[in-house]
């Protein structure tokens, strides 16, 4: 039998544990600029025969909030999953083109996907804490990396929960089962869990769509605070949310990137007719 999924993972995980960030020959000018978190160049993505992303080229700015908007099925989540290679888990998914991070194509053979994911965190649409204690949830990533010192873990848990604005609510019962928290608290816990690894980037796929308006407002506040330290890419279906919290907005339609620019420009003077139609609610 040919190489199994697990073996494939192990190879990637074991092969290059240290950050091998040797600049690859194909890296472009844009990729090496300081303030670019991801430089996406001519990315085409296929699920089997179906092309979900078509010739996407765009730079995700560092330490800013970039919003992906567009009607359902246009490929926002698909592109987001390219940044931490979660698409690897989908059997028939194939990516062409390059995505540079610090000058290295993250799809290259030298890149350790496990390492990549510790630098590029992800928060999902449905809050998905593990059925473990709050403490174990937050420390999970570090424990997987082999951190055993209780002092280090305690500190990481506290500072991550503080950054995720959850510390005050849970500091007295860190041993409680995380699944007993409210939906909004769970989502902040998931953010804390990602922060604990001290990533550069946090990817968020509709992080507030399962939450009520108050919990949503708290997460939005949190995102605005977090952009000081982290690059944030957020997929959202709420135009107002994109307008409120993002610095840059990308509008997708049927796998094409239609328009990308400063959020204010996109919302006030969209260059493309289709963008205008979408943000004014004419379709979608």
């Amino acid at each position: 039998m040919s190489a199994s999924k697990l073996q494939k993972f192990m190879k990637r995980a074991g092969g290059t544990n240290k950050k091998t960030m040797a600049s690859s020959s194909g890296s472009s000018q844009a990729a090496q600029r300081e303030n670019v978190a991801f430089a996406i160049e001519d990315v085409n993505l296929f699920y089997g025969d179906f092309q979900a992303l078509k010739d996407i080229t765009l730079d995700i700015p560092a330490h800013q909030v970039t919003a992906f908007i567009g009607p359902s099925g246009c490929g926002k989540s698909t592109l987001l999953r390219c940044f931490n290679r979660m698409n690897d888990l989908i059997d028939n998914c194939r990516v062409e083109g390059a995505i540079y991070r610090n000058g290295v194509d993250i799809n290259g053979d030298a890149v350790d996907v496990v390492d990549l994911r510790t630098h590029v965190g992800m928060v999902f649409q449905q809050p998905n804490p593990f059925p473990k204690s709050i403490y174990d949830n937050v420390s999970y990533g570090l424990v997987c990396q082999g951190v055993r010192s209780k002092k280090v873990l305690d500190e990481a848990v506290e500072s991550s929960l503080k950054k995720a604005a959850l510390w005050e609510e849970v500091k007295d019962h860190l041993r409680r089962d995380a699944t007993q928290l409210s939906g909004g608290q769970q989502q902040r816990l998931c953010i804390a869990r990602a922060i604990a690894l001290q990533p550069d980037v946090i990817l968020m796929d509709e992080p507030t769509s399962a939450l009520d308006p108050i919990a949503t407002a708290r997460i939005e506040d949190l995102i605005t605070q977090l952009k000081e330290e982290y690059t944030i890419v957020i997929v959202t279906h709420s135009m107002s949310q994109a307008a409120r919290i993002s610095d840059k907005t990308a509008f997708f339609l049927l796998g094409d990137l239609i328009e990308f620019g400063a959020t204010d420009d996109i919302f006030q003077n969209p260059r493309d007719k289709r963008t205008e139609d979408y943000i004014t609610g004419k379709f979608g």
Partner: protein
Amino acid sequence: MTRIRKIKDIFMQSLTWVASGISAWVLVAILVFIFSNGWKLLDRSVLFGDYHAKNIVSGFSDEHNADLTFTPPDTLEDGDVVSTRFGFAVRDEIDKEKNHVHTLTWVDDHSPLLNGKITTAGPTQGTPAPFKAGMNINKFVYLDNSGEAITVGRLKQQSPQEWIPLMDGNAKQITEFHGKEPGGGMRGSLMATLILIGLSLLFSVPIGIFAAIYLYAIAKQNRLTTFVRSSIELLAGVPSIIFSMMGITLIFPIIKLFGASGQSIILGSLTMAVLLLPVLIRQTEEALRSVPSSYAQASLALGATQTETLFRVVLPSARNGIFSACLLAVSRIIGESAALVFTMGTAIQDSPKIGSSATSLAVQIYVLMGGENPNFELSSAISIVILILVLALNLTVKVVSALSDKKGKA
């Protein structure tokens, strides 16, 4: 038209009533039969006693002070015949193996019966053999005033009402006691069953879990995997007597290399392990599949490897399901007989050893019912134990799955 429909309706309805009535009646009848036959027998000596009776012959050297008289306790019942001279009481009864016996029901703390020493030649000769309540008396030999040795007891066809006054009145000194520690207990089979459970799980659970993990996480969706899967399905339906044959023909030659001589608990355990594997694999895989994929995704997105994800997140989340699968496996082991009669043997042992033949509770029933005089009473008592164990296991499974359901919803 409506009339016909009505008749049809009534007919079908009464059919369901009759069917459910019959099945309920049969189940109740079985339970009533088992409990009425076995319940009165079920006591400490049946649960924890030896199966094989032990004959004891002991002697007394010291002369008993004739002036001493003992007073029996108030707890004695009708039919207990008391020897005030020697401080014991005996009743005539039928034992678990349906023989007439004279059973000691009371022995005073100062009775000379406690001073007996084994006289049979052998390594145990001379060791103290105190006669306690529960033992059977076959005969006594005593010396009367003229120094003549007299034999009394059940072996002389005397009832306790006859021989006890005789001995009390004439004995100067008891010289010999022929007794029997009664058998008919299930302790040996109970122990063998526990060993069997332990060993079978030891072999099958790790293999089952890893095979399930392989099928769940590693195996590719191809022909080979489909073949493996359908083989497992098929094996789960194979009658256990066939596993028994397989145990002899395939497993025995292997363990023979390690010095096993024949039917043994270890051979039975390995056979049971193979028999349990298909079900264990299937249920474990099901438990793994029921873990939300969002857990695995979250773990991978946090930079955990596939292996870490499996062992730190997926497996712990599936543990209730896996635990239930193991409990069901245990109840299968308790109830199994066909797979064990050839592999573990049918020799009831009081102190079972891994390397030699022994019977599980279910096989002990098979043996007891298979002889010329089927022992319904003892078999029913064992059945009650089996039923209680299996019921407890099933209840635990229910509780566990109810708990994990509750947790899943929260």
